[in-house]
């Protein structure tokens, strides 16, 4: 344990402020869910927590996809005043667990048999060494294609089986004056497309080698160049007003027929459902086309911090609420993702979610389940940042694919 953590823990225990809060049966949590649907889903959990006798104290910090919340957490921890729980994304939890700041959940996992209820691929994000430190609430899938059915039918386009077909379909649409892809210039949106291309064209083993292991031969090889070439094609199929476009606005474009397709995670589904559209009838949902199907996951998990003894009861109650199958079902039906638990039945979920369930089972069996790079579940933040920079730069400039690959390799090496 580093000196830093020792100091902060000593400070946390020495000051009674936290204890006063706990004595009233409160659980305080930091998260970045601030939209109405996200908050609605969270309420499912907090209401359930209330039935256990604990009140939820909300420390929401929105913005920058959770970066503001992360900053708030770090400063709280530096001050020796951690929250009871925190919504953890990517490697954040792993790092804190390694520093010894998070409580081990092994007891709860053993007592409730949760190990069998989660997919093996997400273990690196909820377990550090021998200790479980987080409970996952949901699983998002990053690489969906949301398409306007009317447009597809009009131009006789079927669900593409690989990226070449997808690009061909896009070109056909462009010839007919239809915007093929609704995108934005935000780096993360472009990276989502890029990493989908990379995995779909080359399989999850290559993805692991290039993006997780950061192997230099993989990063500088022809597969990378081909991926950038394909991204360049996508760039040609995007309309001119794509700057600063909010992803939800892009979804709106597909919903209203101004664009044909959007490549976005399953949080976009809510946009279509809110407009009263039905999957398979008004809009289509299918994963980005791959020769061997893969599943790119993104999870939200809650970890609990080491504080004083009075906090433990509330924290345990919260974790049990999070992992409760009924809570997971209700939460995810509102949020648009699927439960992190693989043993929750699919009834009641819409068709897109059902497909997600099926694809996930298949991927678990085939071992083709991988974490999404854009949301921080593949490369660590300092490297993911490099991907994001280079891909974003490539998209908005006329950089050549070779230059992009060189910049990528240089950037990754610089950050090692």
């Amino acid at each position, binding site marked *: 344990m580093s000196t830093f953590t020792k100091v902060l823990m000593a400070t946390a225990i020495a000051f009674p402020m936290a204890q006063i809060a706990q004595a009233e049966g409160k659980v305080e949590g930091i998260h970045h869910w601030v939209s*109405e649907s996200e908050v609605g889903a969270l309420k499912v959990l907090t209401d359930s927590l209330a039935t256990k006798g604990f009140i939820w104290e909300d420390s929401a910090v929105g913005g920058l996809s959770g970066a503001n919340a992360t900053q708030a957490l770090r400063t709280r921890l530096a001050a020796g005043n951690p929250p009871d729980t925190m919504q953890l994304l990517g490697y954040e939890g792993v790092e804190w667990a390694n520093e010894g700041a998070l409580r081990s959940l092994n007891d709860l996992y053993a007592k409730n048999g949760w190990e069998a209820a989660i997919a093996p691929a997400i273990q690196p994000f909820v377990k550090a060494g021998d200790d479980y430190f987080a409970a996952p609430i949901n699983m998002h899938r990053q690489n969906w294609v949301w398409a306007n059915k009317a447009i597809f039918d009009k131009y006789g386009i079927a669900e593409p089986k690989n990226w070449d077909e997808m690009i061909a379909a896009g070109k056909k649409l462009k010839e007919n004056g239809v915007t093929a892809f609704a995108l934005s210039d935000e780096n993360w949106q472009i990276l989502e497309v890029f990493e989908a291309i990379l995995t779909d064209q080359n399989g999850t083993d290559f993805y692991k080698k290039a993006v997780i292991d950061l192997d230099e031969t993989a990063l500088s090889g022809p597969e990378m160049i081909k991926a950038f070439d394909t991204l360049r094609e996508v760039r040609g199929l995007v309309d001119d007003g794509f700057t600063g476009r909010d992803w939800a606005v892009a979804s709106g474009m597909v919903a209203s027929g101004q664009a044909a397709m959007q490549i976005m995670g399953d949080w976009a589904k809510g946009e279509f459902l809110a407009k009263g559209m039905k999957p398979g009838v008004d809009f289509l949902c299918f994963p980005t086309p791959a020769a061997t199907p893969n599943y790119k996951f993104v999870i939200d998990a809650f970890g609990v911090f080491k504080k004083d003894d009075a906090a433990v009861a509330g924290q345990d109650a919260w974790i049990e609420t999070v992992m409760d199958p009924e809570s997971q079902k209700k939460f995810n039906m509102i949020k648009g993702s699927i439960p992190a638990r693989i043993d929750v039945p699919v009834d009641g979920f819409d068709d897109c979610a059902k497909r997600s369930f099926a694809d996930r089972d298949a991927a678990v069996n085939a071992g083709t389940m991988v974490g999404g790079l854009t949301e921080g579940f593949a490369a660590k933040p300092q490297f993911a940042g490099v991907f994001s920079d280079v891909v974003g730069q490539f998209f908005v400039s006329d950089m050549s694919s070779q230059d992009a690959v060189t910049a990528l390799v240089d950037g990754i090496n610089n950050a090692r």
Partner: protein
Amino acid sequence: MATDLRSARRSQQLGRLFIYGSLVALAAFYLMPLWVMIVTSLKSLDEIYAGSFIGLPKAVTFEAWSKAWGTACIGTKCAGLKPYFINSLLMVIPAVILSSGIGAINGYVLTKWRFKGSNVVFGMLLFGCFLPFQAVLLPMAQVLGKLGLSGSIPGLVLVHTVYGIAFTTLFFRNYFITIPDELTKAAQIDGAGFFRIFFSIMLPAALPIIVVSCIWQFTQIWNDFLFGVSFTAGDSTPVTVALNNIVNVTMGRKQYNVDMAAAMIAAIPTLVVYVVAGRYFVRGLTAGAVKG
């Protein structure tokens, strides 16, 4: 002769036209964003999504305003901006009073009770103005933790006071330097002590610069986001953090009208201060802050 007079008058008229024209054009440039914000906040959401941001609302509605104030959801708490607005007030008022007060007495000491090295001290204080605040978040958090003030409004007041001292000292010192030393020396000969001189001579004369200092500090502290998000938690966050949560909604339809109404509500105190006290601001600057 007559033609000279006429052409002189015409060039004067053209001159006035030029002056007024430029001022009005500039005024339009400065008012445009405010116009956009007000107009958007009075529209219904459907109207915004149907049209552009700049046109007049077809049907004026104050729904967005009442929502922003009382019912908008910030995290799971759906009480609008009101509680956070109050937090900001509780935080700003003590911070402004403390930092201005300390600045005043510092300025007084540095000009009327100079000692060896007082200029060095002033220089060192002043350098603090230029510190990029992101760099001090983590060490300051550690200090606040050790003091037991983390996550609370008093902690935030302390932080703003510490970083406000540099500026307020600058304002007061530059102002007091224009007050003749003879005044204070005469008072000393009469037997007045350190504090007596401060309260009976310096402060009353310092009214303009007190206003400048308070206005400046009020604006900086009220509008601060970085310290607010880092050093407070849950119920004690200021209004800027709450505003950020409202505006940064990423799911679903962005409620632009509520966003704009919320931004305006958060901006009203500082706007009022500038509009009402703006003339005192200029007067205070005239009275001495400007002299280098």
